[in-house]
């Protein structure tokens, strides 16, 4: 191994790097205060750019959503996404969570979901039901997880799969099924073409 890269040396450096990068990413996507020393206006530009990119990718993996919402899609998505980091499971999960937020009962005021007319609500609910089916059993091993994730993206439209990876986003392997406070289990979901 080359000089200067022994594991014991990097453990402390990894720790310090993790704190610094998490602090920066957290301010960019989770609404925590900006760490010291960064140009605040550039942080703001980067935040907006990340939100816009995320909206664009979700619009491509779930093109039905901009169809249903029309010009309301973008402002609604940005209102949802601000301060709500994307799920580590990726853009399809993000789209589902966005629809859950849209269709949930919520108080009025800034940051809450826009009012939906009945047609949009029905369409969104139907869309969600098609994609948030019952969760299969958790995978037994790493190889199975990789295979299942590959199958999921293969079943989805090539547009969705392409868009899902058109930017750094979902890994090919999920890190495991996590329970959610509400909404469906996060498990590979069969999608219809």
């Amino acid at each position: 191994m080359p000089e200067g890269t022994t594991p014991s040396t990097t453990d402390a450096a990894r720790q310090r790097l993790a704190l610094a990068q998490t602090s920066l990413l957290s301010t960019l996507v989770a609404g925590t205060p900006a760490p010291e020393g960064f140009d605040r206006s550039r942080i703001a530009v980067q935040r907006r750019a990340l939100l816009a990119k995320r909206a664009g990718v979700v619009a491509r993996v779930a093109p039905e959503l901009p169809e249903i919402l029309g010009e309301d899609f973008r402002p609604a998505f940005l209102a949802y996404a601000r301060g709500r980091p994307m799920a580590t499971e990726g853009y399809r999960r993000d789209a589902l969570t966005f629809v859950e937020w849209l269709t949930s009962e919520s108080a009025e005021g800034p940051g809450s979901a826009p009012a939906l007319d009945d047609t949009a609500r029905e369409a969104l609910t139907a869309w969600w039901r098609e994609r948030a089916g019952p969760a299969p059993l958790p995978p037994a091993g790493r190889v199975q997880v990789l295979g299942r994730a590959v199958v999921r993206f293969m079943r989805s439209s090539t547009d969705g799969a392409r868009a899902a990876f058109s930017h750094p986003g979902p890994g090919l392997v999920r890190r495991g099924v996590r329970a959610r406070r509400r909404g469906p289990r996060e498990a590979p979901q069969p999608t219809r073409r």
Partner: protein
Amino acid sequence: MTHLGTGIGWRPEIADAVETLGVDWVEVVAENVWPGHLPDPVRRLLDRGVTVVPHGVSLGLGGAERPAPERLTALAERAEALGAPLVSEHIAFVRAGGPLTGSPRLEAGHLLPVPRTRDALDVLCENVVIAQDSLPVPLALENIAALLSWPGEEMSEGAFLAELVERTGVRLLIDVANLHTNHVNRGEDPLTALDLLPVEAIAYVHVAGGVERDGVWHDTHAHPLPEPVLDVLAALCERTAPPGVLLERDDDFPPVAELSGELHRIRTVVRTSTYAKETQDA
């Protein structure tokens, strides 16, 4: 170093155009292709002898954690399925949080800049060695475009890349549009970076268009190649003959004639560089 020639980033939207353009090689986003299920147009390019290089966007070698074995395996599988002579990724972090900080995992959905510090370089070098050990072909890493600068940076871009190469033997994918982006956004002179970085480690070069808005350069890959970006390419070609140059166009796709024009501009810069003329005369 494998000779690649002039190429274009393969995207499904321009699959037909790519087939007619007659490029020497293409690059595909690694996460968008599945071994054993390659898109037919890519299969046809391979059958014609066009080199296809997988370019990963989600490894995050610049992050604090070691690269995930599953992600490395996936990249390796794509290299093998495509018969690629190398693979490429980025000097960036794309996720944070998790056990090292006891905070929720966060995905950036974007390539974010690595602080140019000793800590980050030590971690990056170890991550690169781990990656190289898992890959069947050489790895090239790309310098990214950044809106932000980290406070307290200890090294310049050129020095950082030089030491990365010296310690790991990794190849470089130099994106001249990203050098231009960092010139506008961070005041970093591309020529200084080109003077310091080891040009003999360059596996290939990215060229792309962008646009300036409110004093910020946005590396959109959706605009024609601007002169300043071609100037950086020319400066690079004064210092070395890059084995490959690749045009990146990801959005607002123009007609094939315009793409052909862009490739012609790239070939002209490469062909008329002093270095190319000197090696031709030798």
